[in-house]
């Protein structure tokens, strides 16, 4: 989508509000024309020494009225504008986040979270600023055209000679705008690196402290800062030179008027009032021209911003960023109610030739085939880097598969990303992410079915933790759950999965979350009582022994499949993994 299309759709979102702003600010920008004309009239009345002095006083009264009306316009305009401008920001942010959180397909954030946050902040600001520009545009344009018209009508020759260099400036701005854009981009990239470094460091603050490397991290940040400063200065210098050339031209203009009008002033062909009018109008006319030059540069900058947003959203349909949607910024607050979704109860799940390779590498999974029936307990095992987690994530559409088919009860799943959610399945990642809310909110995730909560907590063996926590379920868990221990964090993640009440439970290696006893307990109660189907990554012997089938992975492929005993006989890799544990057990015995 072009920038123009984006802006048109954005305007269409709240058309009436936008155009009210345009009208009010148009009036606001036009009023100063009257200042110039009134001041000219005052000086003319003085220099002609008209007998009735009251004329100048009347003009002064009118001038005072003009000033007052502009203040009134500002008062109204600002309230309209601030509401509109802030709503535009809110609107864009909502649409970005909504797509990432809720759209079909797979969502892999193509950049670090800190960089992605800068899409929500800096790029959103750029677009809102551009909307502001559009609001001012017509008022400014009218001012420019009328102003130049007035100057030409006073004296066409002087008017033309003075305005011509101003137009040239605008053209010059145009040729430089791509350079400005380049400098801005470099500056922004440097900023992103600084922001990133801060975010990552504080995400890993305990590791940095424990390593005692606070100073080298600070030195690293300082290096990034130097680079950013150099880039910012290049940007400032260029912008400032252009601005100065513009201002210089105003003075050249005024100087030209003085030179050209010198003789006419003596003969009366050009009045002092005319000179004052020129001096009054020229700076604003220059501003208008600079502004229009800026609009072009800004237009291109917004293109960069929307490109980056599109990159973040990967496969969003065009216009998603500016799609009308309720914002709930004012008015009554809606209560959240969980949606009841009808699922198709799991009978069988089949995967055919599933492939996923990480872009720009050879790592990934290849030709994955598996089949599981309701009530089965399927364990995926293998060495480090064998592709176990990748398999789980590709299956659920968290990673975009390159090829392959997934069938649920024999029917192809079009969009695993939205299909593999409750009530079909729920998931616990290897390192579950919790948010700065209460433990209850983190586990429920909006689910109001409170009766499921105790059951989920019990299954996840969180009972003792609850007793130990300051406020039990209402404990605020801190950023990313840092107030919880590693094990508590993962058990909370598991509880969250159980609280969904899904058919298929997908666990990515709970071994550090649950001790073996609890894990055993968990499998037993799940398998015996609850009619649950599980797809888990594990290398625990308890899990391997209980598995209805084991998928043994090696270098991204399933190299063997079956029951433990069969695999131990047929696969050297399986024996290798198994013996590693058995060795130690014999050593102990």
């Amino acid at each position, binding site marked *: 989508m072009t920038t123009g299309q984006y802006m048109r759709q954005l305007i269409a979102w709240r058309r009436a509000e936008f155009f009210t702003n345009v009208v009010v600010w148009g009036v606001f920008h036009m009023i100063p024309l009257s200042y110039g004309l009134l001041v000219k009239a005052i000086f003319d009345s003085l220099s002609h020494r008209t007998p009735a002095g009251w004329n100048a006083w009347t003009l*002064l009264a009118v001038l005072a009225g003009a000033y007052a009306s502009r203040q009134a316009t500002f008062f109204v305009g600002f309230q309209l504008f601030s509401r509109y401008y802030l709503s535009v920001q809110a609107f864009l942010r909502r649409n970005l*986040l909504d797509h990432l959180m809720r759209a079909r397909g797979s969502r892999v954030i193509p950049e670090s979270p800190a960089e992605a946050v800068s899409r929500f902040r800096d790029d959103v600001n750029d677009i809102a600023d551009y909307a502001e520009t559009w609001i001012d545009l017509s008022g400014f344009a009218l001012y420019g055209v009328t102003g130049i018209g007035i100057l030409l009508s006073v004296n066409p020759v002087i008017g033309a000679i003075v305005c011509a260099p101003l137009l040239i400036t605008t053209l010059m701005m145009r040729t430089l705008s791509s350079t400005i854009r380049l400098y801005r981009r470099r500056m922004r990239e440097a900023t992103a690196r600084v922001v990133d470094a801060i975010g990552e460091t504080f995400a890993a603050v305990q590791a940095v402290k424990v390593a005692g490397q606070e100073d080298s991290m600070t030195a690293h940040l300082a290096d990034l800062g130097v680079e950013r400063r150099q880039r910012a200065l290049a940007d400032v210098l260029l912008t400032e030179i252009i601005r100065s050339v513009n201002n210089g031209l105003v003075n050249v203009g005024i100087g030209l008027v003085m030179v050209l009008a010198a003789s006419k002033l003596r003969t009366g062909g050009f009045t002092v009032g005319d000179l004052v009018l020129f001096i009054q109008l020229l700076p604003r006319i220059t501003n208008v021209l600079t502004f229009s030059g800026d609009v072009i540069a800004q237009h291109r900058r917004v293109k960069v911003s929307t490109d980056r947003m599109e990159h973040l959203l990967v496969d969003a349909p065009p216009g998603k960023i500016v799609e009308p949607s309720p914002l709930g910024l004012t008015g009554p607050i809606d209560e959240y109610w969980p949606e009841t979704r009808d699922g198709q109860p799991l009978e069988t799940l089949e995967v055919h030739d599933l492939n996923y390779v990480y872009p720009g590498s050879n790592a990934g999974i290849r030709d994955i085939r598996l089949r599981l029936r309701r009530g089965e307990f399927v364990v995926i095992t293998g060495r480090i880097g064998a592709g176990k987690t990748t398999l789980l994530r590709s299956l659920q559409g968290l990673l975009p598969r390159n090829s392959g088919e997934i069938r649920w009860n024999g029917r192809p799943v079009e969009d695993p990303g939205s299909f593999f959610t409750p009530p079909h399945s729920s998931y616990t990642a290897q390192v579950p992410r919790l948010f*700065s809310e209460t433990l209850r909110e983190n586990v429920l995730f909006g689910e109001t079915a409170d009766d499921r909560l105790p059951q989920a907590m019990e299954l996840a063996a969180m009972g003792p933790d609850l007793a130990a926590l300051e406020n039990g379920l209402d404990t605020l868990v801190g*950023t990313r759950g840092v*107030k919880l221990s*590693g094990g508590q964090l993962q058990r909370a993640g598991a509880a969250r999965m159980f609280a969904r009440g899904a058919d298929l439970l997908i666990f990515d290696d709970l*071994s550090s979350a649950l001790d073996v006893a609890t894990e055993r307990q968990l499998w037993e109660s799940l398998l015996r009582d609850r009619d649950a189907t599980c797809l888990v990554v594990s290398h625990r012997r308890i899990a391997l*022994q209980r598995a209805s089938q084991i998928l043994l992975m090696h270098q991204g492929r399933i190299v063997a499949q079956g029951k433990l005993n069969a695999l131990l006989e047929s696969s050297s890799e399986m024996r290798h993994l198994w013996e590693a544990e058995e060795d130690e057990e014999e050593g*102990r015995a």
Partner: protein
Amino acid sequence: MFSYSQFVARYLFPHAKKVGLLSVCLFGSVGLQLYIPQIVRRFIDLASGSGPAAGLSGLAFTFLGLALANQGLSVASTFLSADIGWSATNMLRADLFRHALGLDMAYQKDRTPGEMIERIDGDVSSVANLFSQFLVRVSGALLMTVGVLTLLWREDWHVGAVMTIFTAAAARVLHWRRSIAVGPTRDEREASAQLFGFIEERLTGIDDIRANGAGRYVMHRFLEVQRGWFTLALRAWWLRSTIWLSMGTLFATGYVLTLSLGVGLYLRGAITIGTVYLFFNYMAMLEAPLDQITNQLQEFQRAAAGIRRVRELLEARRTVIDGDRPLPAGAAHSIEFDRVRFSYAAEGAHAGNEVLKGISFRLEAGETLGLIGRTGSGKTTLVRLLFRLYDATRGCIRVDGVDLQQSRIDALRQRIGLVTQDVQLFHGTVRDNVTFFNREITDDRIHAVIEQLGISSWVKGLRQGLDTPLEAAGSGLSAGESQLLAFVRVFLKDPGLVILDEPSSRLDPATERLLGRAVNRLLEGRTGIIIAHRLETVERVDKIMVLADGHIVEFGPRAELATNAASWYSGLLRISANQEADSGLDEHLERLSE
């Protein structure tokens, strides 16, 4: 207390030369701007008078020349101020960053990385305005104001007096408006920090949200948070706009006032028409600086709110106070806990919620301790105390006889290595990630350590060896592989005490065995604490401690405990011998306690 002047002195003093040059440009520019209207007045009087008109073109060209010179000075001063601004705030950013990193975990755990970004970069960027814009422009504007008023007094004392009163009134209004908007502006920034913190957290947890179908819920929460921001922002914007509004009204009054005075004096024949214009022109020249001041005041409010937050951050003190006693050099350290009690909520209502309830033991230098206990028993906390991430609420911990509360924290952490379960990576190469960007660590040392770990084949397998760039999540590096990097990090320190917190929990058995051997080599000649969940992990240790609910329920030499039939450890061994398969310490513990 960190005052504005201290602030300026600390961050501007290093750039004194540039500041000097900047002042020269600024003075020159103000002088030229004050002189130029005098030329225009003479021009108008000459043009409208009846005397000889010979000087007119000369005046016009002088005007042109001086106006252009003024532009040059203005470019120079803007560039210089930006340069000074960036240098100064980069320094401030680094200071803040270092300070914030040094704050306790008790501080860190309440803050999102997004919030820290806002505090270290966002707030400082608004402070940048103080350096690069406010100081320069406002001091230039003040100079200009004083200059204009002086010249007006010289022309006609009536006008001088009226305009001085006017300026004083304007300044008064400025001051009044300034105080009103600071609080709400601060609230707005807080709300904005929270909003971006929210977004950052959700983006990090996107898999958890999507796979558990919580997108709708997250969006609902987001709209709530955003609504809070909107309300506060709207209020702050409105209060800030009243500054423009009142200043606009004041200036309208000022223009009408000067013109009226000019017209009155002119009609009485007291001044020339050129002087009427001069008054009007000087009034216009007051508008620019006073408008500049208001405009900058807007920024200043941001900066003031920013500075207040920066100061808050700088004044945040750690409760863990650095000591001055270094740890004795040597390969291994002894550890002693003496009736150590600890609670995360140090005072108040939850002070009773102790995590450690009187821990006393001694571990000799070179010994290895296996730490056993269910989650929540206090194992992780015990480790955190050793690093002084927190200080014991009561009791005393000694390493080589040095009371930790008197030890130098940096020296302490240099002597202890930790491998945790969750390894965070940075945007950078493999080398940056193992060295934490410390350039003093040579490649040879890294390679030597990798060799010692026995994972050189893994590193060679990476596309560009140590130069392989690592990204945040999703780069194709598995959790286990990240953990290998953590091992390198620890080995590089050559610590005297090594703590392994479930180091192999997420490694497959084959890799685990490989690492196990390396761990043995690392522990050789060092003191070690291994937090274990499996019995086989504790096989290699000298002593065993069983923790339960913040108490030591058992502590002693492993061999002794194994033969003592009454011990928990022998109980664990018996139970595991009867188990058909996997050996789970926690499970056995549970059975024993039943």
